[in-house]
């Protein structure tokens, strides 16, 4: 099979064949021999060109997250033969709706509507799980809307801001 993989902001072309415990993979032309043993739910021991790695494979809405001992990478796969669009790209094209990841209280708004922001910049500070947390812009653009005010309590999924 041939996939386009969006891995933490970079798109890679992946060809994969094999079955059972052995796979041949080519990532952007780089060939990998991969041994595969699923040892528990979401946990797999792989041998990549002889090197042994224990990887976690979590499912999420748009693909999976590969958990290494020292890193955690979200991967979105797109079947290059069957067509379709990468959800991540589709999302980054339009305005991004920033929602509350958990219930909490808005401590303060950092970027009022109209502010130009870079991806990763803090939009507002929300208190949740005993901590003050910065809610960040998922993409660069302009803050089109701030849907909350200081001191407001919000539930999971509540719209906080729109960045377009």
């Amino acid at each position, binding site marked *: 099979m041939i996939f386009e993989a969006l891995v933490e902001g970079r798109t890679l072309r992946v060809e994969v064949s094999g079955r059972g415990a052995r796979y041949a993979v080519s990532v952007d032309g780089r060939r990998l021999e991969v041994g595969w043993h699923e040892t528990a739910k979401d946990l797999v021991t792989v041998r990549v060109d002889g090197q042994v790695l224990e990887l976690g494979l979590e499912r999420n809405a748009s693909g999976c997250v590969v958990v290494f001992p020292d890193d955690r990478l979200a991967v979105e796969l797109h079947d290059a033969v069957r067509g379709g669009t990468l959800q991540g790209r589709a999302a980054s094209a339009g305005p991004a709706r920033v929602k509350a990841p958990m219930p909490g209280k808005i401590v303060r708004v950092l970027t009022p509507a109209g502010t130009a922001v870079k991806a990763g910049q803090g939009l507002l500070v929300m208190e949740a799980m005993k*901590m003050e947390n910065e809610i960040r812009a998922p993409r660069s653009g302009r803050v089109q809307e701030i849907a909350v005010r200081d001191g407001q309590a919000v539930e999971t999924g509540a719209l906080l801001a729109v960045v377009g």
Partner: protein
Amino acid sequence: MAERSFRKVLIANRGEIAVRVIRACHEMGIASVAVFSEADRTALHVRMAGESHAIGPAPSRDSYLSIDRILDAARRSGADAIHPGYGFLAENAAFARACEQQGIAFVGPRSETIALMGEKTSARRVAVEAGVPVVPGSLQPIAGAEAIRSEARRIGFPLMLKAAAGGGGKGLRHVLREDELDAALQRARSEAKSAFGDDSVYLEKAIERPRHIEIQVLADAHGNAVHLFERECSIQRRHQKLIEESPSPFMTDELRERMGSLAVALVERARYVNAGTLEFLVDAERRPYFLEMNTRLQVEHPVTELVTGHDLVKLQLRVAAGERLPFRQADLVQRGHAIECRVLAEDPDRGFLPSPGRIEALHAPGGPGVREDSGVYAGYDVPVHYDPLLSKLIVHGANRGEAIARLRRALAEYRILGVPTTLPFFARVLRDPAFVAGDFDTSYVAAFVARSDGARERPRAVAAAAAAIRALRERQAARLAGDASRLPTPWFDAGLREAQRGRA
């Protein structure tokens, strides 16, 4: 206080610290009573305790912070002591007083000591009386904005603005210049008001690039007091500790001796009883300044347990029951080196944003010198209502080098899947030459994130390959299942599988 031993102890807490105290009780032959909110019905501490009582809905103000409900559970269960853990009611003088009035032993200092040390400027006054150096600044809480401005000019900038009732980094502001003071004051006071119900503040001169080093103390009700050496807690972000170790790589024998004696002097002056911790800032010239005293067990107490060989929770219970300390200062030594990592449900790649959710898989590390104090299990839903601490990974080695190597090894074994955690971040910090050299201060985490995140080599190719293999395997499995559903009998299916065997 008459000596007696407890029969039954109620733990007024949740998570890993409740589990920790339950373990100590069971080893001592003491029955344990857990309390739980509606969100914690299936939490690990409830599963491990001998008996458990519901104390109300999920929000902590209606459950773990409700003095009446916890005392009611203590009465119903017949507990003769309450261990408060840390956080929640652990430093609440009114709670300790209520326990005293009900004739239930509070495992901690007397209520008046908690009140004395809880108001941060009165703690500073006691320290000054005991001859302990404090950070230059105010010795009284200040309420009026004009009084604060003139006090700030007297102390000089940069300075720290702190909530008098404070703790945990709430109501705390670093003010670099006079023109920042008014805005900082407004925020600090609103935070202090909402966190502690008291918006009075005090000012301290800012110590530039300090180490945060604390001294563990323990005192009995018979006038015996000792210190159990230091813990290095400089690895923190936003005033929340992430990694602690003992001994401190910054410490000298002379400074350790001096800080230990200062700590014991303050304990004696305050007639302090039970376990406590004195937090100090230490400047680049190795001058210590007392910051505040935590009148409870600390999250990071295991590093002290591993280097001294003493179980602090058992000692707390014995002291609370009226026993004498079983050792003197001269009997205590530091053996080897211990390091702790706080495993939090937080995403280090999204500014340490809390990441509650279901733990899908959990594989704890093992082997020599490894201790895991956990409050979670595979299948557990990390609730959104409480702090994000999942577990603490603590290692002990013959020296700092072995402890670091052991912690790296243990981190590589530790897997928590389903929610982002701080584990991968710790694996990266443990490879950082500055950390390995012990060359850090309280600004370390922010600087490490800034310099390393962009430059990080990320294993994108292997991640893409793993995701693709799993997608292929799922496609193959679906095809097989689809074929199977059209086949007439299981016998045919088995025959087909036989025929396909070896083809790949």
